[in-house]
């Protein structure tokens, strides 16, 4: 018996298949274009990044070559900073004696009558030991009053009278007053 296809009955179904595959082809084409464009863009981006890296490597190479020709400069700065740090550390430990020496001599000038400074010892921790000479006993009392004044005491964090000697010579008698204390630090940046 001869077989046949009934196109009239199956046409609707076949048209549906045709339409499905046509749509699928369009979608596949679209996706292919999308993937292609995406991939090309990504690889262009990668290429740009690669170029950027190459340029940086070149810049680094040039810098290294420049520094290799001038390597002593870096060492000079390092040497300077190390030596200078040491210098500053040492200088910070040093008590600048001149301002302290001036402080004592100047403050004694304000006393009336002005005593004579006989000896002075100043240590780096600003402890001071000084001896004053008075020619007569009447000068000692006013000085002791002066020594208790804020004007004089404000220069010291501690101050005590450690000795008082009367030295009699052939013609003269001198009165020696020994004071021991600690000077207040002088802030030289204020001047």
């Amino acid at each position, binding site marked *: 018996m001869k077989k046949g296809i009934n196109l009239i009955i199956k046409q609707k179904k076949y048209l549906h298949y045709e339409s499905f595959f046509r749509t699928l082809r369009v979608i596949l*084409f679209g996706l292919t274009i999308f993937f292609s464009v995406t991939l090309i863009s990504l690889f262009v981006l990668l290429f740009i990044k690669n170029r950027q890296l190459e340029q940086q490597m070149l810049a680094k190479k040039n810098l290294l070559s420049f520094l290799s020709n001038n390597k002593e400069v870096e060492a000079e700065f390092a040497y300077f900073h190390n030596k200078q740090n040491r*210098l500053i550390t040492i200088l910070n430990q040093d008590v600048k004696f001149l301002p302290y020496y001036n402080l004592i001599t100047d403050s004694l000038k304000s006393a009336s009558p002005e005593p004579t*400074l006989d000896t002075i010892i100043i240590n780096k921790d600003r402890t001071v030991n000084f001896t004053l000479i008075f020619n007569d006993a009447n000068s000692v009392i006013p000085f002791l009053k002066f020594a208790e004044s804020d004007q004089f005491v404000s220069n010291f964090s501690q101050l005590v009278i450690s000795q008082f000697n009367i030295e009699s010579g052939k013609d003269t008698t001198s009165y020696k007053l020994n004071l021991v204390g600690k000077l207040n630090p002088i802030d030289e940046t204020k001047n």
Partner: protein
Amino acid sequence: MKPKINYYLLRVIKENSIYLIIFVVMLVGAVAGILIFINQFGLINNKIGTTNKEITELKKKADLVTYKQEIIKQGINLDQTNRMLTKLIPNEEDFFSAIYALEELSKKTNFSIVNYTINLKATTKNSLGLTIEGHGDNDTFFNFLRDYRFSGGRLITVDKIDFKFSGFSKIKLNINFYSGKDAAGQNSSQVKLTDFDKRIIKEIQSKVTLDVAGAEENTSFPTKTNPF
């Protein structure tokens, strides 16, 4: 019962199979491409980041070369300053340079130093303690107190002064000289000079004289390439 074969559907599938195969290949290619891209992009980005950091550090160092020339215009010669600092604080203690410094200081301030003894209590590996005895008048002693730190050509600090005012004789001072190499600080080479640094340098330059002729390498002598 035999399953019914849809010949038409098979034919349509066969006709479109090339598109399906191309799509699958493209899809696999795209996924592989994206994976390669992600991997490469990450690697390159990391390298760029690292190189950027290295370049920044190298640029800082390279800037020092330009900076060295700039400070010369401000009157600061780094080579000379380093030689001065080495003179002030030599890498190894040189007793003769300490004595020479005292002589120089004495000449410059007119404060006569007549005697010196080593102060063992104050002497350490990197510092030499001396007790010096000198005489002068009010002005010379003032000059000494003003200039002792740099003017002798060696860095000097004073620990103690002890003197009698009558005649300014027998003034005793405990002083220290310093020497030794310094530990290298981290990144210290990359720090430019501050105003404070410049002030210190100017002060040293004004007080320390450098024997340039002595510091230069002598290359005037004849040389031989063959020792025989």
